[in-house]
């Protein structure tokens, strides 16, 4: 018994040493004391990982928060990837929603700080410029709180994002790229993550039409568009209307090691997500007061498309009509 404990001690010491060299957090999942069934507890250096310097922002979706280990990390690099460039609305929207969540929950006055949006010039031509009148009502980013840095080369964009992350006085830095450039490797993401961690400031990396590849970001989310819920009116949901933004999000890398797919509606009043139902489990949960139990809501689901789960399948990109079109 004692020898085992000694060995474990040694393993931890080594792990800590490695973490020191790598500059990453030594994290592990501990078996929760309350028994199976309850959420896993994240421990860091033996302490519960909810102290200062490890602050998370709740997204508002309980299952996603649980899978994320409490919420989105404030001081970290978060990767938001989309499969196709034409999904740029959903991917950009989700990334900005994360930025809004992170700057919303911060200490007083944090929301007053601007967001720096670094992007490559060809991305602006491809997916369009950010449109300030749309950003404010959706994500609470006032026009004078947005700075756009347009880079011609990836190196320049990375440099600008790193410098902004190092400065630490933006509420968030958004770096937008397309595809899997060779220069954005593990080292580059690690540098971004380190800068974000040191400055205590979130960096959101948007990758359009990207294949999953190794990343140093503790969280990676694959975002696809999802049919929006119907618009709520006093007389109930309005048929055939387009409601708040909705995303089908697959958590493909997280600190807890738990993955899953979630369909989230964005509440632009509270700047929080509302979970529709976890797609993997195929059952309806009451995400918030109304919604799931609402018959109109269900009707909308069957009306809009065959199955919400399909929205997150990889085969989405290759629907027959698109193949014909291409």
């Amino acid at each position, binding site marked *: 018994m004692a020898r085992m404990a000694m060995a474990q001690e040694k393993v931890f010491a080594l792990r800590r040493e490695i973490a020191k060299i790598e500059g990453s957090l030594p994290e592990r999942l501990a078996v929760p004391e309350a028994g199976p069934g309850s959420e896993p507890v994240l421990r860091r250096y033996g302490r519960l990982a909810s102290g200062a310097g490890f602050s998370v922002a709740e997204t508002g979706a309980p299952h996603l928060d649980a899978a994320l280990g409490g919420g989105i990390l404030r001081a970290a690099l978060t990767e938001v990837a989309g499969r196709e460039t034409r999904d740029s*609305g959903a991917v950009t929207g989700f990334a900005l929603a994360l930025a809004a969540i992170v700057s919303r929950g911060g200490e007083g006055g944090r929301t007053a700080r601007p967001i*720096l949006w670094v992007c490559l010039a060809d991305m602006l031509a491809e997916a369009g410029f950010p449109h300030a009148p749309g*950003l404010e009502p959706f994500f609470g980013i006032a026009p004078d709180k947005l700075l756009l840095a*347009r880079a011609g080369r990836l190196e320049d964009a990375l440099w600008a994002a790193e410098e902004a992350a190092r400065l630490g006085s933006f509420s968030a830095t958004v770096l937008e790229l397309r595809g899997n450039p060779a220069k954005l490797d593990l080292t580059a993401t690690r540098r971004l993550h380190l800068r974000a961690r040191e400055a205590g400031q979130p960096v959101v990396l948007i990758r359009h039409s990207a294949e999953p590849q190794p990343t140093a970001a503790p969280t990676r989310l694959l975002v696809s568009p999802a049919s929006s819920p119907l618009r709520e009116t006093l007389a109930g949901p309005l048929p*055939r209307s*387009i409601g708040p933004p909705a995303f089908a999000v697959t958590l493909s890398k997280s600190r807890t090691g738990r993955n899953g797919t979630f369909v989230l509606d964005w509440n632009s009043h509270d700047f929080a997500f509302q979970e529709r139902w976890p797609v993997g489990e195929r059952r309806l949960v009451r995400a918030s007061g109304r919604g799931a139990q609402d018959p109109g809501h269900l009707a909308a689901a069957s009306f809009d498309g065959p199955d919400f789960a399909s929205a997150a399948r990889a085969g989405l990109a290759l629907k027959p009509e698109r193949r014909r*079109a291409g």
Partner: protein
Amino acid sequence: MVSHRQNNAQRIAALDERAEALGLKPGMGIADARAMYPDVEVIEADPDKDRLLLESLADWCDRFTPLVALDGRDGLFLDISGCAHLFGGEDAMLAEILRRLTHQGFDVRAALASTPGMAWAAARYAKADRNVPAGQEEPALAPMPLAALRLEEKTRIGLESVGLRYVGALIDAPRAPLARRFGRMLVTRLEQALGLVEEAISPRLPVAPLSAERQLAEPIGTTEEIEQLVLILARTLKHDLERRGEGARRLLLSLFRVDGAVARIMVGTSRPQREPLTIAKLFHERLSALEGSLDPGYGFDLLRLSVAVTAPFEVEQTDLAEGVCDEEEEFSLLADRIRARLGEGAVLVPVLSESHLPERRARFAPFGKKAAGQKAVSPQTRPAEKIRPIRLLEKPEPVEASAEVPEGPPLSFRWRRALYRVARAEGPERISSEWWREDKPGPTRDYFRVEDMDGRRYWLYREGFYGEKAAPRWFLHGIFP
């Protein structure tokens, strides 16, 4: 020998000493010259290249004085007022300029005088003394031919035909009859040369209000060395800026290469700066962006940092405990650095204006411009916004769409070669063109928010109406989250 075309014949424009020794003269026909000496080498004159050469020489002469002006095709004026002592006096400076230019392989003549006219004459026609002291213009000018006065060809021939061949003959002559007969210009030129009338030269480059420079005995070439020197120069400038109560909005670094080429690097700031470290940082970014395109050759032997544009510097009292912790300051500094590295228009901020057209409603303007002038529309005074996309395509992209009912939303559309089937649509929202802004108003647009079968949400519009002469066209303009 250089030839040029004059009156439909190739004539000699310029020649070197050896050709001169053969008895050839400028203005002689090339055919004649070839007949006399079949093996002379003739080169076609290239005025553009001559001009470029003269300009690069002028750049090089910047090291002696900031006031350098081009004079015709083959001359340079250097205003060295207040500069001569830096080079050990007027004579030493003249000798130094001549020596260095001769080393570069130029056959150069130079003279120094109190007036540009006198210097021009002395450089071309003085026999021995090339430095004409103030007050000595008259005796120096008197024995020179009339051409020394920079006269028009016609005037000169006219004067010579009445027997006036030397300037001396004009100096004492009554001015009024001269002006009447040969034009006002003659008298002006004469008086300019004598210093009776002020003549200004027009420098090629605007003179910087402040500059600091450093001559180097040993040329430098590496970026690090340049950056170190920039820091030293910026420290020198700081005192001057402080004395004037100003900060720099635009800085120019001139690098003079040993072999005469001059590189200029411009850096702009969004708010007045005077901190040497900040300035050095900006140049660091600029230089690292230029890496590769900045050719040090054999090295730079003179660096000059000038403040091209200044602005009043507002001194703010800083918190004793916190030190300088101005966020705005930080943002503008970062923006300046990004701009220095990525280019002038790299950092943009949205600017809203009162308009219904989405592309006019919000536009991006370079960072820093806004701070100087207009203020964005404040959120309080804005009317409630309609639902707007978060991304707007720079130009609306035409799509092929089919609608169920003529004025209704599209049923399906093809954008960038992919087909989208519309599941739900909201609209239309009619936006007319702004006739009060445009001479020729564009067609009315009907905007629809649509969601396709996969949940992508787009903003489409139909331009024009059904039943009109031109069929309505569909465009995709924005993307919703």
